[in-house]
């Protein structure tokens, strides 16, 4: 059997971290959590998660800056990034499109849709 995939959840809101953590754990993944982009970046570098779910607006390194810093890492070791944001504007769509394996989910997000997106990504990358 495949090794369990590890998902990193980055959000400054504790209840969002918890809800995603439980939902994703129940879906059969391991989880890591970080409170801000800076902490998230360290975990990405050290623990190499298979996917990252991140809020856009966070203290100490926001979601956009985090994506721009992790994009070079993704060239060698691609992984999915899901950015959670309020209504997307065209400018935001543009930078998200430029990133490797990056997508967004609009707030209020649906936890089950996030899990669906993870499953789909792993299904496509495994085959």
């Amino acid at each position: 059997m495949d090794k369990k995939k590890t998902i990193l959840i980055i959000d400054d809101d504790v209840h969002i971290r918890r809800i995603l953590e439980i939902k994703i754990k129940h879906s059969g993944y391991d989880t890591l959590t970080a409170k801000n982009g800076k902490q998230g970046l360290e975990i990405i570098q050290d623990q190499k998660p298979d996917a990252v779910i991140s809020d856009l607006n966070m203290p100490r390194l926001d979601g956009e800056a985090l994506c721009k810093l992790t994009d070079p890492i993704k060239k060698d070791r691609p992984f999915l990034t899901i950015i959670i944001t309020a209504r997307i504007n065209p400018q935001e769509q543009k930078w998200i499109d430029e990133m490797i394996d990056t997508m967004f989910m609009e707030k209020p997000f649906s936890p089950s849709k996030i899990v669906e997106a993870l499953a789909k990504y792993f299904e496509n990358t495994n085959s």
Partner: protein
Amino acid sequence: MKSTGFEEILSGFSKISPLKFEIWNEKGVVGSCDLEDPNKVRQFLPGMAARVYATEDFLHEKNSKASELFGLPLFNEDSVAGVLLAYFVNTRTSKRKTDPDLGDAKVILTKIASLIEERWEMQNESDTLITELDKSYESLHLYSNVATQIKTLNFSSQMILHLLNEIKDNIRMDMVFSIMPDRPDYSEIVCREEIKIKDEPGFVASLIKAVENSNKELDEGYFIVNNSADSKSFSKLNKNPFRFLAVKITHNENFFGWLGIFSLNMDDIIKRSELRLLVSIAEQIGVVIANTDLYNNLEDFGINIVKSLIVTIEAKDVYTGGHSERVHNITMRMAKELGINEEDTKILNWSALLHDVGKIGIPESILNKPARLDDKEYEVIKSHPLKGAEIISPLEYLSESIPGVLHHHEAYDGTGYPSRIKGEQIPLFSRIISVADTFDAITSDRAYRKGASFEKGHAIINEVAGTQLDPDLVQIFNKIYKKSKTWQIQRQII
């Protein structure tokens, strides 16, 4: 069994105390333990654990190695989820003077057990809260989706489908349906693939029929069946038991239909929160449908007002009866051939219908003169596009249709009126109307001459392509002319 979080503490505690602690479940020890076991006491632990599981109570035993064993069940949600075991070891260095006090051991074991149980209870509560929060997030997501759709004026069957799918995924239902007898466009059923129900529309129809035939009061506007097996009229509809909820879609006393959810999973019931969600979505759908109806009625009303206006104008001109409708008809066919989008087609629609509205300001003596017009009279006639534009200019809704009216008498080579613009400078919609208008003018009877045949009209249109008319649009006209062998008949109808 859930992790207790106490394994490490107990194992550490065991290292420094003559009393050793272990937590067991049905399979064996949980977490770490002291495996040194010089007195070979651990061999008694499996039996002890099993006995505690069976008695579900505190046990104290003395075994053949003269060692004391204690066991206490650990409860999680009213059933034994593990056992806490403790035993004394008489190591050579720590000779105890007296026998261990049974009461003391029981007290400390009970304290530790209650700590573990409290921790489990908190974890359970936290998990329940998180699960509830998860559901609220899903509902919030669904609400925000519905709210976005409510803003649009024109509700469509795709929107209903999308909404039903969202509900199905959101509250994990096997089937979600909206049934509106007078609006087949909005009647849809979505179903999980695994669910096998033959003839879904027929099944849903019989479900609704059973609801409507039931004697239950429907004052609340909904109907719940939590187990179809409890009711004769519902159990006969499907061989497996099911539960379902149907909510009325209404607005201001007007009944539109039913929104329903259906599930074959009998481990759950339809919850209060799901009922609230569905009632509120049904209310929103009711508002949207009422708004869409109102919008469509207004639009129809507008079209009918314009049509009466046209009839009024044409009543003045005895020879041009039906001209505007025919020009409109040809223009719309050309628009379709050109692949003009829905929004622009609407603008063109109004321009075509209203292109001659300015004739209302032309004296009847000129319009109906049974001879060729002199120059002065012709100048008066030439003022009708401008007059038409002026007439509709106060109507904000028609502002985009003005250019089509104003320039429908411009010529492709720049010799037309009122602005003498040429080629692409003439708005596309005016150029289209111009082709249709010219064709109908040639083939209609006039005060001073009889109308030409369709063949003759078609030939003349092609002769003036490039001078009076846009040659590309004449090609488009030729295409629809070829397709329309039935024009003759249609003309008689109009």
